[in-house]
């Protein structure tokens, strides 16, 4: 497959918005999922730390 120019590549034969929009959608949902995964993990880590501190202070 040869595109000739970057303009031709980005325009996707007139379907640029449709094609790149679809790929952008996947990138967006994956980015959101990774962000959610990390923030939930951070919250769980903090819970464990709190639990650990509580167990230590009561011992």
């Amino acid at each position, binding site marked *: *497959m040869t595109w000739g120019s970057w303009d031709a*590549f980005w325009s*996707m*034969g*007139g*379907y640029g918005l*449709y*094609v790149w*929009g*679809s*790929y952008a*959608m*996947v990138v967006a*949902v*994956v980015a959101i*999922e*990774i962000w*959610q*995964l990390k923030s*939930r*993990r951070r919250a*769980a*880590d903090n*819970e*464990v*730390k709190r*639990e*650990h501190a509580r*167990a230590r202070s009561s011992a």
Partner: protein
Amino acid sequence: MTTTTAPRFNLFWFSSPQTFYPLAGRLIPWFIGLAVILTLIGLYISFAVAPTDATQGESYRIIFIHVPAAWMSMFLYVVMAFWAAMGLAFNTRLSSMMATAIAPTGALWGRPTWGAYWVWDARLTSELILLFLYLGFIALQAAIDDRRRADKAGAVLAIIGVINVPIIYFSVKWWNTLHQGASVSVKGSSMATTMLWGMLIMALAFWMYSIAAVLYRVRTLILERERRADWVRELAAQGRLK
């Protein structure tokens, strides 16, 4: 206390959260690495190798993400229902956690699949129902405070919902729909070889990403549910939770 030697060839050894947690932690970087490499190869084939489609022009190039995302949304649902059923049958903690961990990633692939152009078409509608099943599973589990009851209720919903998966798959055959028929089947493919390769490699990349995401989420779930367990406290005390 607990023994530290793993019995060989015993899958149940890893079915307890305590042993699965460090194993999952070691596996995640490998699946992320594979996902990145396969995505790069897949995108290269999709945009630099695969030719222009004779009838659909360049617009067809969404299939390299569209079809793998649709496959993932259906397959992950079946895997989720499998783990939910295992949790229901054997009452194993990890199984229900696996089901819960899969749901958001499955829903993620459902969303870009039916995309922006909406019509009440059989394929699109059944895929929308799949998305609602995922969201219903997540909402139902979140609504019940008692963890065991939440897992059980979710499992029943997940298992009943499996009926929708073959409906999605065969919808283009059973009804006269706007969505085109299957390009790939067990009998063979109607596509150019490079197009097919691009699609299959992207599907593998999505697989690797999904496994990494599910393992990451299940580790978080384990920490949330077992934070009072001795082994979690020990790991925390040693600073080895990562």
